[in-house]
């Protein structure tokens, strides 16, 4: 029956209305359309609040002026904002920004180039050092190899000489008979005796 209180009212604006009884438009509050009127309010005639016509005229004047000024202000602010936006995007601000960024870019590139140069120099020195070291090492290894080769040759020569020396005592088909004769003529005795104290006795009993 009684609806919940709704927040929005139907607005009623009446300026310069006459003093006589004029019903204001009904405003729906707590009650719905079908609810009966309260007993205390049966004979009530609602009149709008009294309006002073002189004051009203003055007030209207003031309002027109006020609205004019406000509209001008709004336009002003809008123009300022558009101008600022334009400057920001296209005009002087953007140019300055572009210049600053170009400067920054150039300085950074210069820094980068300097750094690269420095590192390049360091790298070159290092490469040089390494090349020299490698050269040195190569030479040293060559020397060592040479040395080893020489040693090897010397060793082999020594062995050959030794062999040559020994070859003089070899038994050849020519010497064969002679050497057999010699061997048979000189029997060698390899026996020997040794005791725990280490005394060696070479001469033993003769055996045939």
């Amino acid at each position, binding site marked *: 029956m009684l609806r919940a209180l709704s927040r929005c009212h139907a607005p009623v604006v009446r300026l310069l209305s006459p003093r006589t009884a004029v019903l204001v438009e009904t405003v729906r509050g707590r009650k719905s359309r079908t609810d009966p009127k309260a007993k205390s309010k049966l004979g009530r005639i609602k009149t709008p609040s009294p309006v002073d016509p002189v*004051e009203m005229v*003055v*007030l209207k004047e*003031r*309002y027109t*002026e*006020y609205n004019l*000024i*406000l509209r001008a*202000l*709004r336009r002003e*602010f*809008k123009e*300022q*904002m*558009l101008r600022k936006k334009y400057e920001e995007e296209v005009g002087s601000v953007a140019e300055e920004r572009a210049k600053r960024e170009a400067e920054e870019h150039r300085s950074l590139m210069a820094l980068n180039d300097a750094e690269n140069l420095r590192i390049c120099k360091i790298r070159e020195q290092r490469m040089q050092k390494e090349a020299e070291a490698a050269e040195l090492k190569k030479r040293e290894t060559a020397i060592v190899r040479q040395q080893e080769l020489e040693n090897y040759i010397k060793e082999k020569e020594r062995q050959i000489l030794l062999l040559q020396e020994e070859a003089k005592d070899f038994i050849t088909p020519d010497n064969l008979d002679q050497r057999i004769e010699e061997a048979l003529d000189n029997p060698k005795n390899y026996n020997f005796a040794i005791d725990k104290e280490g005394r060696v006795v070479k001469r033993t009993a003769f055996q045939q």
Partner: protein
Amino acid sequence: MVHLSSFLLTKYHGGHIVIRLALGGATNRPFYRIVAAYNKRARDSKYIEQLGSYDPLPNIHNEKLVAFNYERIKYWIACGAHTTKPVATLLGLAGFFPLHPMTITEAERRQKAALTEEVKRESQEQVEQKEAL
């Protein structure tokens, strides 16, 4: 749950931005924030930006403190925001807007009422003096 709607849930049709007072504070102690919000939003709910504050109760030195962020207010008015009557009156008193007509009218009314009160009191005093004599 993933919210797929935009930051301020703006799916309004034909709404506009207003600069108005949002009520906060405690019982018997109101405090207003001057706020730019969409027209359709509830009074105290999510706003776009806070542009100032207004304390309706006078402080120790009998001052009512108001704060405004003029730069941002200019921006929002340039974007087409409306202002409510109390905000307009406050801005008028601050000097940013022209003085609101109702401020002037109410001041005049108060002055007239004070004048009539004074005249009535003087006439009453005169009548009493006459009666005394």
